[in-house]
């Protein structure tokens, strides 16, 4: 299995700098769990953070800062974490490690809700109070992936199965990390259902919508 569709460079930088919210962080992390190439790129992006921190104008710490630290170590809080941690989950899991904390170890355990013919959904995190939402879709072969964006950014990771749109075929591990203005209509490939993990930005607020509608005119 080779991944064809990867994370946008700007997304990798946002992940490394900690700029993505929890829903998008999860989709990125799940892709990184499945993609050696992007994981390596993320490490490089983290080196940027290391370099920036190395060259920052240093802030003086309190005079007793190190003594405080030593006092904490002496109080018994110094137990080091061992490398060979017991594995967090079942070795036979078919769920990317970062996602297991949210949906469990097995895709079969997901409690889907039918939202339209051939379309099942599992809500992981509802986009309340301006937060992004995170959910999974399970779409039958030949069906169109429903429009789910609200004009905001969205990111879709294929966990199993495949769909096709004008950008090509998206299979397991592929991520659609697209600019919000790209129009596309994915159709699930024949054979098996397509299960994907989706993050979408908070629904656009009315005021933003007005601004957005105004933009073409403002530019002229």
């Amino acid at each position, binding site marked *: 299995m080779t991944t064809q569709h990867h994370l946008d460079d700007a997304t990798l930088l*946002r992940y490394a700098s*900690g700029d993505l919210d*929890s829903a998008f962080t999860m989709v990125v992390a799940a892709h990184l*769990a499945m993609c050696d190439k992007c994981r390596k790129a993320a490490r490089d992006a983290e080196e*940027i953070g290391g*370099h*920036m*921190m190395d060259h920052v104008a240093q802030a003086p710490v309190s005079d007793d800062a190190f003594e405080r630290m030593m006092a904490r170590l002496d109080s018994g809080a110094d137990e080091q974490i061992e490398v060979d941690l017991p594995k967090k989950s079942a070795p036979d899991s078919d769920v990317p490690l970062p996602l297991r904390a949210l949906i469990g170890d097995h895709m079969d355990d997901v409690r889907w809700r039918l939202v339209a013919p051939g379309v099942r959904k599992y809500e992981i995190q509802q986009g309340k109070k301006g937060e992004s939402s995170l959910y999974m879709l399970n779409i039958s072969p030949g069906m169109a992936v429903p429009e789910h964006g609200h004009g905001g950014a969205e990111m879709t990771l294929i966990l199993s199965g495949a769909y096709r749109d004008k950008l090509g075929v998206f299979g397991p591990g592929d991520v659609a990390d697209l600019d919000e203005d790209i129009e596309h209509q994915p159709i699930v490939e024949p054979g098996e259902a397509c299960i994907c993990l989706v993050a979408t930005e908070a629904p656009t607020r009315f005021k933003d919508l007005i601004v957005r509608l105004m933009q073409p005119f403002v530019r002229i």
Partner: protein
Amino acid sequence: MRSALNLAHNDENIGTADDPTLLKQAMVRVAEVQDRESFQFLFSYFAPRVKAVLLKAGSNESQAEDLMQDVMMTVWRKAKLYAPDRGSVNAWVFTVARNARIDLLRRASSRPYDDVYEIEMESDVASGEDEMFATERAERVSEALSELPEEQRQIIELGFIEDMSQSEIAEKLGLPLGTVKSRMRLAYGKMKSKLEAVR
């Protein structure tokens, strides 16, 4: 040759890591024999930097001091998880500080950054990449960043150090979001082409 220990007893401010192997040696001694003098060296090197980043990201003085303590505590406790063949000590401490900042903001039931790191530790992608290789990559990143035009460097700095989102950066600089994104991509692209030479 100056050792990490000699430096730790030196009261002068420690500058940037001219010799990243000193930091790596100190990490290894903290991990393997819980050496407190090596930790003191790491502390005097990183504590003022971590605190500076926290202040720039918007913490007040006492929050920054406390969170810095937590970050350095994590550096001690997780020292064994640092893998010298995967990157520089600087980058690792940066991620520890980043994760602490995120944990503070979110009460999350999942730990995606830790999980990705665990996968990275277990993967053998880095086999054949030795420590020298990782060091060279870190150097190339520094090189590329120091050669960036100011307009690109500024955006990287605002994102990584001042903890601003892309839209906040756009607002601050009075630029369209698309311009911020494309400058980020340009900056990262230059770094990538330098790294390709190492691959």
